[in-house]
């Protein structure tokens, strides 16, 4: 059994003292970085990359990877407790996580997201071990037409995220799309809306937007609202333990989230944020009672959490099997290999089996460690809410500022966060929702880039979108989703009318 031999090899590599130590170090750093709003894994990994000059490549990757998937665990903590996301990928967890915390179920939410993270990661590691090469081959068969249609589906799904007025939801998505246009246009090199500021050439920093419209806006919104400690719910051990009902309701969402996350993660250039947004949208769509979403539905936190962890794990598939990194973090991982003279490419696994399988087994160890590490911490995090507002919120703002600064070492990014904080407040007052805006911002540039690229390659022939089976399937799903949405909303209206007329 080849797989068995490989796993054994992996265990022999991962269970050396050095590798275990660096794995534990990586996941611990990652988890804390995920918890702190604004401080992201990209900055942390960039800072620690030089360290890898002094350790063997496998050990280096074990640690850097640990930071990456470890951060996916911590990201939802602040979303749930404070309504501000630790990472952009966990922004969507705010929607139901924060209401849960307000209902005194913060502890349960934290435990369930930890569990969901573990399920998402663990299953995906097995998928990675068993099917990495064929999945990578599938991922690389996606072309720009397929990417466009998939992202369009994501945009249609954004409509499902909207909780209040559909018109305002649509407006929020469009504002997000417009913000996404800022920067250098990939296809032509033309600068759009940069106003001559060089820090805008690469677009608005996503962390600045996410932290501004979610984080800072939330902090400002709370000024005056909360006098003392904001949560009077007693924290007892009981209040931390999920009910059998919570677990039962979460099984399917976790599995669906894992599936979506794995699928998104293997596609280079997509990222964990899209995975968690899509998982949330799909959960709300398939739910028998979509109205409970936004009010503390447990499916609304477990599905996206499983999804972003699964995506973080499956992003290693194209990176390690093909040498094609999906995002900046994965490019850093390959950089760690390059430093040691290992050229990343399609032969990395066959040339360095110890590296690949050792890393895979370290994922298993790392995730078990994260589970063990996170459960006792839930009690600690919940107590964060006991910290009085005048201490807690200024420190959050400080952390956001440090985090945003650490990405590009640019003080202008801090100004940008402050600006988006004000924008976020305005949106909040006017009743626009930040989540669809963020999704519009993430998807907009990808939709535009791939749409124009497809047409450049096809020399303007629109039919390519329908000729390719993958693209055509996604477009059909878009159409189906649109019709369904219109149908269900008109049905709802009819029912409402009937109720009104029967009164």
């Amino acid at each position, binding site marked *: 059994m080849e797989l068995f031999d490989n796993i054994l090899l992996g265990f022999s590599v991962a269970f050396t003292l050095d590798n275990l130590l660096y794995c534990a170090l990586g996941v611990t750093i990652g988890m804390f970085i995920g918890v702190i709003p604004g401080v992201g894994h990209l900055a942390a990994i960039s800072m620690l990359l030089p360290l890898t000059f002094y350790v063997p490549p496998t050990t280096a990757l074990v640690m850097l990877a640990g930071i990456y998937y470890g951060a996916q665990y911590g990201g939802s903590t602040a979303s749930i407790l404070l309504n501000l996301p630790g990472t952009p990928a966990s922004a969507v967890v705010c929607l139901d996580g924060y209401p849960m915390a307000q209902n005194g179920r913060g502890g349960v939410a934290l435990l369930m997201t930890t569990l969901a993270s573990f399920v998402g990661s663990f299953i995906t590691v097995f998928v990675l071990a068993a099917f990495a090469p064929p999945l990578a081959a599938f991922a690389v068969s996606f072309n720009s037409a397929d990417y466009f249609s998939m992202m369009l589906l994501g945009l249609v799904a954004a409509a499902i995220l909207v909780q209040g007025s559909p018109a305002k939801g649509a407006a929020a998505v469009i504002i997000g799309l417009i913000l996404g246009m800022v920067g250098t246009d990939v*296809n032509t090199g033309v600068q759009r809306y940069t106003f001559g500021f060089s820090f805008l050439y690469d677009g608005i920093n996503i962390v600045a937007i996410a932290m501004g419209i979610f984080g800072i806006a939330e902090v400002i919104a709370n000024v005056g609202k909360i006098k003392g400690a904001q949560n009077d719910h007693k924290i007892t051990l009981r209040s931390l333990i999920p009910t059998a009902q919570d677990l039962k309701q979460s099984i399917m969402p976790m599995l669906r989230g894992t599936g979506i996350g794995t699928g998104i993660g293997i596609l280079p250039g997509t990222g964990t944020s899209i995975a968690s947004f899509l998982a949330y949208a799909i959960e709300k769509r398939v739910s028998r009672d979509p109205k409970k979403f936004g009010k503390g539905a447990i499916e609304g936190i477990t599905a996206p959490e499983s999804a972003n962890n699964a995506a973080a794990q499956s992003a290693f598939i194209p990176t390690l099997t093909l040498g094609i990194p999906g995002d900046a973090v994965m490019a850093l991982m390959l950089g*760690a290999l390059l*430093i040691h*003279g290992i050229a990343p490419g399609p032969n990395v696994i066959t040339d360095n089996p110890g590296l690949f399988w050792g890393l895979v087994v370290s994922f298993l160890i790392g995730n078990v460690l994260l589970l063990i590490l996170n459960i006792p911490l839930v009690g600690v995090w919940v107590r964060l809410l006991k910290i009085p507002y005048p201490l807690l919120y200024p420190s959050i703002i400080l952390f956001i500022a440090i985090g945003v600064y650490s990405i590009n070492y640019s003080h202008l990014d801090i100004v940008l966060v402050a600006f988006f904080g004000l924008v976020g407040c305005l949106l909040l007052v006017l009743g626009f929702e930040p989540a669809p805006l963020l999704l519009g911002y993430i998807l907009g540039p990808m939709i535009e880039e791939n749409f124009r690229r497809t047409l450049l390659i096809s020399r303007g022939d629109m039919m390519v979108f329908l000729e390719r089976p993958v693209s055509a399937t996604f477009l059909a799903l878009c159409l189906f989703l649109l019709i369904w949405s219109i149908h269900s909303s008109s049905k709802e209206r009819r029912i409402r009318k009937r109720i009104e007329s029967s009164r």
Partner: protein
Amino acid sequence: MRTKPATLLTATMITAATLTLSLLPPPAQAQEFRGPVRIVVPFAPGGTSDILARHIAPRLSDEIGQPVIVENKAGAGGNIGADFVAKAAPNGHTLLLSDLTALLAAPSVLSGISYDIEKDLEPVTMVSYSPYVLGVAQRHSFPSFDELVEYSRENPGGLSVATSGVGANNHITSERLSHGLDLDWNIIAYRGGSDATRAVVSGETDMLLNGTTASLPFALSGQMTPLAVTGEERLPELPDTPTFRELGLPGEMDGTYQAILITAGSPPEIIDRLHRALVEILDEEEMRGRIAEQGGIATPSSSREEVSEWMKAQKSELASFIEESQLAER
């Protein structure tokens, strides 16, 4: 502020002393540097420039007796970091290690570049040269570059070339190649080199010019067919792939050049000291080996003027090509 004669006298004496010291051999040299030296890399960690900088930094630190720190300031195709060094205090403590061609083309391709690479930065030395490999998607079976050209002539606009982005070195080189051969290639910009590689591996685009480190694994595993390489000689890993020069193509079909620059106006003795130290480091067997690991050839410059002249010639050549081909307006 008015300078008192006494201060002026002291200053003159100090300058004279320093100048005398700089003529003396090694020991006194550590005094030239007051505090840590920074090497700014205008790209993300893990890229070629970054790895080179991190290999060079500890050796440079040994030579000058001061800590040498590598700092990444990524963005706008290297121009944010270059701008930073261009505007740094000219005290000789801020260096830039970057892929040069992108910076030289920037003023002709991008708007709003607010520094002048010739006036605001001074070269210290070239670091390395990496040739390009022209890789063609697996689904094509052109046995040689000539067949590719022939097919391109028969099917104008039928083939597409992936690039790492508008104004990137491989974009300009691809444009030069298609202009030089008078071919109608569809040149498509991607978000960086790995995105462009993905596009060619998936068959979305037909070919790509890319550095050896990024190309060789794909060429050797058969996921891309190497049809030609740039540079003077064939690559040892691809003995059957001819160079563009062998194919009778112009010498400007080049690769990427890494160089170290410094803020203009820095004390000349410090720049000279850095130049000597770096040239020595780049000549070492170990460093040559490390650069080769990154797919490059170490190219320490014999003089700083040599780099200045090369940069000047390259810049004007790029500018006139870009203007001629109206690359920037497209």
